[in-house]
């Protein structure tokens, strides 16, 4: 096994690193302090111009067909530069556009992917509801067929990009008497029964976007509720064309999305590490830079370990996805869980290294400390990742 990048990939990384450092990072503090829909949209436009938003999507539909290993490696630069911008870009590409890539009908791919690739449309995935997140199959949003339309009613919560979204993938449950025998519907008593993904355009009557939440971290990435008040969605917008596959589909989408969340945490630790090294050499106590003290060294070393080990497991799970390996999903859960847990501790350490200054707004590690926590929640909490990994184990040992 070799870890070698091509010259092309190397120049891709260095050019993207520069773009993130020069064009995105300088705005990160402002975006956090005064979240602005136009500023985040502007950042997404910069990324779209570079080609990042469509980078891993298929070239037949306007993407660039980058391998997952390449895409996730370059993504770390963005996550490091501005976690908020990264989250929005990631949700757009991995949760919405890639959902359509993986499961959309030919017609849906032709219709939506080119504009999603170019960032002309911003994508949103609405899975979570006020009443359910971890237990997604308990969702209550209902879709009722009415001629050539579905009428959708319900409330979606925590939709990343909701306030700037153009295209929404909405998970809803179709009524039980669906004809589709192939899908999960065949057992109407199953809690997965009837769950279906719909592609819903922003202008759809009955789709209402809530006001952006006031969040702890990742404040620059706008999140909101999405209300569906008898939203009228044409039948051809059933994602993949057939009712009842929504739950299975979204789980597969998360299998890749979770690598994206792992990179979110990884980028933040990488920023913590850089800041911590810089400051520990500058700050003097008792006549020495604090970098001379073992307690400080150990904190920094722990960050370095997260970055190195984190990169390895991100690459490994990305590679598993590239090669269609069966354990790609569980590796993604491992990657996300491993990095996110360490990252929260690492960011807390970084703030500690800054002492009182770390507690003050405007100090970068203060923002990183707030941003980092999302890594343990988004796309399945730590607890849920452990459930997934354990399920896989029990399956291997023949328990279920």
């Amino acid at each position: 096994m070799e870890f070698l990048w091509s010259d092309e990939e190397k120049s891709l990384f260095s050019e993207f690193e520069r773009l993130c450092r020069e064009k995105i990072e300088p705005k990160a503090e402002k975006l956090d302090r005064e979240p602005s829909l136009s500023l985040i949209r502007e950042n997404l436009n910069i990324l779209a111009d570079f080609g990042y938003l469509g980078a891993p999507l298929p070239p037949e539909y306007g993407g660039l067909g980058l391998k997952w290993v390449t895409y996730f490696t370059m993504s770390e630069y963005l996550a490091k530069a501005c976690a908020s911008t990264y989250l929005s870009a990631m949700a757009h590409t991995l949760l919405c556009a890639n959902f359509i890539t993986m499961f959309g009908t030919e017609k849906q791919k032709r219709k939506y992917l080119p504009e999603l690739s170019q960032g002309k449309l911003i994508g949103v995935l609405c899975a979570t509801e006020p009443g359910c997140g971890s237990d997604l199959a308990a969702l209550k949003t209902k879709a009722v067929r009415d001629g050539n339309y579905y009428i959708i009613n319900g409330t979606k919560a925590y939709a990343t990009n909701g306030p700037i979204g153009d295209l929404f993938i909405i998970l809803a449950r179709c009524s039980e008497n669906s004809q589709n025998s192939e899908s999960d519907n065949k057992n109407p008593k199953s809690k997965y029964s009837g769950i279906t993904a719909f592609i819903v355009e922003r202008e759809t009557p009955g789709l209402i976007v809530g006001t952006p939440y006031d969040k702890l971290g990742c404040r620059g990435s706008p999140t909101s509720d999405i209300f569906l008040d008898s939203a009228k969605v044409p039948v051809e917008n059933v994602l993949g064309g057939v009712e009842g596959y929504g739950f299975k589909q979204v789980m597969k989408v998360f299998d890749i999305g979770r690598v994206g969340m792992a990179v979110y945490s990884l980028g933040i630790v990488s920023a913590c590490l850089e800041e911590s090294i810089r400051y520990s050499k500058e700050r003097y106590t008792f006549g020495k830079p604090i970098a001379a003290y073992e307690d400080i060294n150990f904190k920094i070393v722990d960050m370095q370990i997260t970055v190195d080990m984190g990169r390895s497991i991100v690459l490994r799970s990305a590679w598993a996805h590239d090669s269609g390996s069966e354990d790609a999903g569980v590796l993604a859960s491992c990657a996300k869980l491993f990095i996110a847990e360490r990252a929260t501790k690492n960011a807390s350490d970084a703030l500690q290294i800054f002492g009182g200054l770390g507690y003050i707004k405007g100090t970068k590690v203060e923002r990183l400390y707030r941003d980092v926590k999302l890594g343990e929640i988004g796309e399945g909490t730590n607890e849920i990742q452990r459930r997934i990994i354990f399920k896989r184990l029990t399956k291997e040992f023949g328990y279920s």
Partner: protein
Amino acid sequence: MKILVTAKRTPDPYSKIKLKPDGSGIDTSNIKFVINSFDEIAIEEGLRKKEKFGGEVVVVSIGTQECVEQIRTALAMGADRGILVDTGGRYLDQLGVAKILARIVEDEKPDLVILGKQAIDDDANQVSQILAELLGWPQATFASKVDIDLNSKKAVVEREVDGGIEVDEVSLPAVISADLRLNQPRYASLPGIMKARQKPLKTVKIEDLKVDVSPSVEVLKFEAPPQRQGGKKVKDVDELIQALKESKVLPF
């Protein structure tokens, strides 16, 4: 119109420069190399003119095989093809570089050559001037604005001089050197980088150009600038003035 631009491989201005212990040069083991910042501006200007008038942008780099990286970056930005003059690592002075470029210009016959006003490594600021002289072409250095009129085959170039802006008119073909405020270079895009691989890149061996590049300048030694000495705190303005006088900053 056909435009020739240059892409010298120089250390990233953000990298920390260390010297080799024997002073024979800089230690390149841990530094990142980029296109000379002023050449990047020259390339951008070439691309903008091509976008306006059509034609072709040819990028030249002189150095070792590693310069392919810089040529590819320029191609990724949008240049059409590249020429690497492989020196096999030998030392060239500014006259040597200008002579090589003059040979390339003879072959390529561009309507315009745009170079960075200087390279950020040796800061010589000589090549564009020598090149214009060798070619017998008009030159406009330190350009902060370039307007081209294809009908009259003229370029109007604004130059930042001490007292303000000097406006020169040169007839084409000409040599122009780019200053900092000429433009803001674009970023190579992902599709651009992917396309760059397919663009033509020709390598020419320096020997095959048959120009005499034996240097008239010899590099004796590299030395780091002296370490900054610690400052001194003063009580009041009087003491400050006294200190400035003692250190001969104030002449009286």
